[in-house]
């Protein structure tokens, strides 16, 4: 008999600690990828993902059964990533967009040769402001629609769309730069 997420949560709340491993098995890849794309580092992503599951377990009593468990867990993971990003100083804020706009930087072909073995996509994502990266990862990697992202990220749909459009503009340029082709 297949157990639904809600049934597993119910059993956990009754004291069956081991059954929680079914939820960890099911969603570890989803949460790990989210964390990796947000943080850009595998070790940090592993920590954030594990802490997300532990926080989720400790907060099971606050899980509302009418919501999807995967969305609820995604929200927890997103908050973990935000906490870790706040401690970093090497992200580009919205005020520093000039550093990533056309007209600056070294010769594209030179940079491509230097970075040909790196994850061009992840590098480009890493250069986005955190709030832009969030909506791009949730929409195009996690596969949520704007309504779900609004609920998960706690941002209005209107603001999310503006961020998504601007993020695509930036990402398009950064990917082209990373691949060594001109805009």
């Amino acid at each position: 008999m297949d157990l639904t997420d809600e049934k597993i949560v119910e059993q956990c709340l009754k004291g069956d600690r081991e059954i929680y491993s079914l939820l960890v098995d099911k969603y570890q890849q989803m949460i790990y990828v989210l964390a990796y794309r947000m943080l850009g580092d595998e070790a940090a992503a592993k920590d954030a993902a594990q802490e997300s599951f532990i926080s989720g377990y400790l907060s099971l009593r606050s899980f509302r059964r009418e919501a999807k468990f995967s969305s609820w867990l995604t929200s927890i993971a997103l908050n973990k990533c935000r906490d870790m990003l706040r401690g970093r100083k090497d992200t580009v804020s919205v005020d520093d967009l000039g550093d990533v706009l056309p007209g600056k930087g070294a010769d594209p072909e030179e940079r491509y040769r230097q970075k040909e073995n790196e994850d061009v996509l992840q590098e480009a994502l890493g250069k986005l402001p955190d709030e832009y990266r969030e909506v791009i990862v949730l929409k195009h990697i996690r596969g949520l629609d704007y309504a779900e992202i609004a609920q998960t990220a706690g941002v209005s749909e209107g603001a999310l769309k503006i961020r998504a459009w601007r993020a695509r503009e930036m990402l398009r340029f950064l990917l082209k730069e990373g691949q060594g082709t001109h805009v």
Partner: protein
Amino acid sequence: MYKERELLQRLLDGELDESEREQMLKAIEANPFLKRDYKGFAETIQALEEAKHPLAPPYFTAEVMRKLPVLAVPFWKKAALFLFRPHIFRLNIATIAFLLLAAVSGAVFLMGRGTMQTAALEQGKANTVMVTFRLQAPGAQSVALAGEFNKWMVNETQLSRSKSGEWQVEVPLRAGTYAYMFVVDGRTWLPDPDADAYRDDGFGSRNSVRRVYHL
């Protein structure tokens, strides 16, 4: 131009209705710059949605479960969970044989104990003698027997009346000496005229005494 770029983004998000979509696609075909932008955004989204992602590290689940705290659960919940959750027990033949032997031995012991208790009861009965108590009281409505053998309880031992007005009861007693009295109609205490002896009761009256011997 800004309006066109906004429509382009909405097209990419699938938010245009059928007629808006058709108009936008026509505009894209007609405008090479818009066409370039549309292609660029579509390729960007394709790169994101088709990207290969790293796999979660091995033993991820085991590490999470190891780090999970143990939440306090009431004992009764733990007991209910244990009792009503299916369990799988793996036993070897020797263990099964031992458990069966223990179960059979336990059953035999309990049955034997029950037999012994019954025998003790029977033996207890065998050590008693049926002693008859009689009182001639044709006018009485009820006659009871109260004595040392029933803790002087008035309603414990009732005598039965015969047609001649004689009241009688048989009581199993072990060998010994017993003081007793008849209680007529629930209030009149009378000594037994046929008692073996009499004993002063300390209240100004005399108790009847019956001596019982083993045969």
